[in-house]
């Protein structure tokens, strides 16, 4: 658990982060969203003390981070950034081994860990371990960047716009992979983005920041339904709100008994995709298939429309 308490950062007369307090539960994926200059990066960089707070405290699992030696603190926290910051003069394997090497792990343990991570991120060690970063695609570089951040098995991972440099298709895949890896490793992740779409897609909870202040900190559905301020509402984009709400739910939550014509949809698909599919194929309902492929019921357009509005 990470407790942020009255955190404040002042540069001269500019208040970058203004009295932010929040609690991040262990194992949660928290997304901090805001425009550039909102203080979101500064907030995250104060957690691993790349920026020293003007006042306020950060507690990780009950320990005050200000009291730990700064290098030890940072080696315990994974850190991944937008342009990945891979060391261009080192191979993929050496890059991933950075923090384990700093921690003095023995060679065998490091090699095993590097192999494990390359597999986890679907990079064949035989091909990629000895390559240099410039020999990788943007998506591969990004994966190596995250693998490097996870190398020393940190309980907490900080990610600053990790997908910002990727094109949309690769980004969607990277987001799905991150979600899957997070569930598998149950790492606590704090991710910074300017993209509300990404925040809703990834976050267990979303913290919205503007001009240094934390405006709202809540699960995505609550942010969509009850935006705390007009700024938050504007950030969500009122026009997209029903679709974003639908994107948070899966078919399994809207399935009902009955039959329907046409192609089946999967129970774990999100409702926005199903709505699009029904509208496109001019159907009022679609059969739903469970994990084993058997039809378990149907999902109707009427039900989707009902779920897309404000809860009454």
């Amino acid at each position, binding site marked *: 658990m990470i407790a942020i308490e009255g955190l404040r950062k002042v540069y001269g007369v500019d208040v970058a982060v203004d009295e932010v307090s929040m609690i991040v539960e262990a194992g949660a994926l928290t997304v901090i969203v805001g425009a550039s200059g909102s203080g979101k990066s500064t907030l995250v960089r104060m957690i691993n003390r790349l920026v020293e707070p003007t006042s306020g405290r950060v507690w990780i699992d009950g320990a005050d981070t200000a009291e730990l030696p700064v290098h030890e*603190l*940072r*080696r315990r926290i994974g850190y991944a950034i937008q342009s990945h910051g*891979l*060391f*261009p003069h080192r191979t993929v394997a050496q890059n991933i081994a950075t*923090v384990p090497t700093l921690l003095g792990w023995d060679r065998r343990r490091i090699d095993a860990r590097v192999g494990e991570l390359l597999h986890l991120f679907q990079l064949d060690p035989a091909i990629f371990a000895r390559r240099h970063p410039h020999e990788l695609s943007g998506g591969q570089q990004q994966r190596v960047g995250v693998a490097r*951040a996870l190398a020393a098995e940190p309980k907490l991972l900080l990610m600053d716009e990790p997908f910002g440099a990727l094109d949309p298709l690769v980004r969607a895949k990277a987001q799905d992979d991150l979600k899957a890896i997070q569930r598998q490793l149950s790492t606590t992740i704090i991710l910074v983005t300017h993209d509300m779409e990404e925040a809703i897609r990834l976050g267990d909870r979303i913290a919205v920041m503007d001009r240094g202040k934390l405006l709202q900190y809540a699960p995505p559905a609550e942010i969509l339904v009850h935006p705390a301020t007009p700024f938050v509402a504007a950030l969500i984009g009122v026009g997209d709100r029903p679709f974003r709400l639908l994107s948070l739910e899966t078919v399994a939550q809207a399935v009902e008994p009955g039959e329907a014509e046409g192609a089946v949809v999967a129970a774990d698909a999100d409702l926005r995709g199903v709505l699009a599919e029904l509208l496109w194929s001019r159907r009022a309902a679609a059969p739903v298939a469970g994990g084993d492929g058997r039809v378990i019921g149907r999902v109707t357009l009427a039900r989707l429309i009902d779920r897309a509005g404000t809860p009454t």
Partner: protein
Amino acid sequence: MAAFVAPPVGIARLGLDKLGVVVAALLAVGAASPFAVFRANRIVAGEAKFFFAALPALAAALFALAVLGAAAISLFRTSARTRLATAIVFAVALAGLIGVAADHLTPTGDRYARVAPAAGFWALTFAGSILFADSVVRLKLGPLARVLALALGAAAFALALWSGLWNELSILKEYATRADVFWREAGAHLVLAVGSLAAAVVVGLPLGVLMERRRGLRAPALNTLNAIQTIPSIALFGMLIGPLGWVSNHVPGAAALGVHGIGAAPAFLALFLYSLLPMAANTVVGLDNVPRDVVDAARGMGMTSRQQLFSVELPLALPVILTGVRIVLVQNIGLATIAALIGGGGFGVFVFAGLGQTAPDLILLGALPTVLLAFAAAIVLDATVEFVSGARP
């Protein structure tokens, strides 16, 4: 139809090469200028000899053939390999023919007669070098291949010297009478050039790191080094005589270490001062060019500032720092010649002695090794820079 797309075959195959025109013109000028100079002794005015007079009939024919062949091949668009082979063959021919000319022009048993290469020879050498350098660039030789080519060239040069091919040339006659002095001054020259470089690396590199870390220090330090750079070398030598003389007289042990107002110490110090700016400035630029996100990632992962410097920043700045080393070494090899003026030794000894005696051959004995040394240093360090940065984008 094809005629609209491709130029007529004849022009495509025999089209003129732009640089080749220059080379061919130089070759023409070279062939039409005196090939060698004959002097009855080392200081009288010489009489210029054109190639047909300087060479025996067969060698003169060979000469004409070599020049015409090289001109034809460089004039038209030929492959880079052909041009390189031509340049090498031409160089070998030229090296052999100047030796033959020396033998031919020197009366048998005359120990005072001097034969030296004349304007024509140098023009031809220049033309050959352009052809060679151009074909090497076009072949895009890798760094290792270039160093290997240099080694082969040096070996061939050494072989030619050892074989006695050039023994009748005036420059080697000058060498023969002062061989031991030559090697002593060569050693002094290298100590001055390389030693001052080493000192500049030891001081300039940390200075550059410090300037990069402390922004406030940068402008004053760079301006000071810049100001030193603008002092003419002879003036700087002169300015150092006073302070070093004082040190020699007043600091115990300084004189025993070889510190005097004149001699090697001020020369070494001056070269060192000139070297500081390129070393420190290139270190700063190299460190500045390390991508910010890479440094940020290094910090964020918990590297100490020492670890950041040694395992990330300096390795990434290395190509630029080595470029500084290259600038300094080539510059120092040339500048060290001036050291002879204040008794610092080096190849300059022959240059200034030659100027004093109006003996051009002696000047050449000092100048030629300096040029060759600087040239070799440039090739080796360029290759090193490319090799070091080769593993990266």
